[in-house]
């Protein structure tokens, strides 16, 4: 397992000791999970969800929602009613 690649995909910065520890622990779990290969599941439909629902539609109506200032009250940084992030376009 390429722990650096996975950490980047997950946007997680890991310390060197975390990399060593998690690699061995996760590999240990995956070895256990490989027991699923004992089963021939070739013709079995996967279950994504237990209820027989796919798309759930509703009427497209205008309804009250959270006021902007309340929705923004937990933002680490906001300005003019918008979330602020580090500059992403030069």
């Amino acid at each position: 397992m390429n722990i650096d690649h996975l950490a980047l995909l997950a946007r997680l910065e890991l310390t060197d000791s975390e990399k060593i520890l998690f690699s061995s622990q996760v590999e240990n779990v995956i070895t256990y999970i490989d027991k699923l290969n004992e089963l021939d599941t070739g013709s079995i439909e996967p279950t994504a969800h237990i209820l027989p629902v796919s798309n759930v539609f509703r009427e497209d109506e205008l309804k009250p929602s959270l006021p902007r200032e309340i929705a923004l009250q937990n933002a680490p940084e906001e300005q003019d009613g918008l979330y602020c992030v580090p500059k992403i376009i030069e």
Partner: protein
Amino acid sequence: MELYKLGLSEAKKALDKGEITPLELTDAVLGRIESVEGAIGAYITITGEQARARAGKMSPEDIKKGPLSGVPIAIKDNICTAGIKTTCASAILKDFVPPYESTVTRKLDEQGYILIGKTNLDEFAMGSSTENSSVRQTMNPWDFQRVPGGSSGGSAAAVAADECIAALGSDTGGSIRQPAAFCGVVGFKPTYGRVSRYGLVAFASSLDQIGPITKNVRDSAILMNCIAGHDPADSTSARMDVPDFTSSLGAEIKGMKVGIPKEFFVDGMDSAVREAVEAAINQMESLGAEPVEISLPHSQYAVAAYYILATSEASSNLARYDGVRYGLRVEGDDLVEMYQKTRKVGFGSEVKRRIILGTYALSSGYYDAYYKKAQQVRTLIRQDFEEALKKVDVIVTPTTPAPAFRVGEKTEDPLQMYLTDILTISLNLAGLPGISIPCGLTPEGLPVGLQIIGRSFDEESVFKAAYAYEQSTEWHMKRPLIKAAQV
């Protein structure tokens, strides 16, 4: 009798008759919290002031308003309460104050409940011992060397130690039933879709359900009456009529077919747990139930399938903690570095481990081998239950293969920790309802849990069987003796 010892229906009776007031009850519970909480550590936030204010304002009419009016109830701290911190026991949400109310707490509020506090959990409900909390370790009220179970360990310990009248938890792989078993109380996981998840901080959305943790089966059914039902805000909540869950309580279980799956009496099971559960099955037989041996051949694959599905869903759900809209932010030189640093500081080890595992399972080239495979095995596990439940009305098993373990005993080896949920996890994969009720004490004085599983949306049979058993024994009346010396 001390008022804090009351269960929900007893407390409600006394309130309705005017024998006690909501403020007296609230003060009794707060007094209890003050004397034992230092040793138990069940709560993250105690809302004593708001609770007293609300209780003190209730008129005699208010008290009669609903089945919870004037009753102090604790809520697991991954369920959003508007204006009251909801932390998920994570550093990343340490100061998060939700701007909106979850559907379940809104419903409890409409029934007049009094929020007494928010309870401890494994961070983001990931764990089986509440040891993964970034806030504190909760102790098992029966033995302060042991864990209360998890992830709803705070709710279960608070109910067992009489630090609330009842509580809500959430269950993704056993997180209500396992701590209920470890703490000697009643924990109920509804059928997937029975209770709205709106406002429950998502861990694994296809598995998560909210449910009650209570002092007895009747209280569990009453709370289910209050929280069940379709919710337009949760598209996965079921459009099903909600029965009165208390109506099956007291019905005879004569002729009821009770399935005993041989695979759930696993090798290496604790002998005291085995004896207690076998005695419980005999007791149900003496009440007229008919035990039937059944087989759930794929249940041995449940833990493996679960740890792919749950971690995959978690790695996706937890992508929202990015330091932009809410929660912790740690600055970085650019956007990606800000994400990475925020998540490095904000998440604990178990959450990081599960994000890595889920990211691996979903990553390019591995998706079919792991995620799709696990979904196919989920189908096989579901079909096993469907077949079995054509022949029997309910299925009875131990809730856990062993009683509460010691603090620190399993923290070094995640796989050993995951395997403690071996008997509860398959219900989440199949979406079925299940309850854990007390059925004995080991020679060391630790509670044993009996799990009763029902058909999809047939919670009533589960409650009926659980109540009949409970009322024919005295296990539900046992409470831990919290000695002054321990406190």
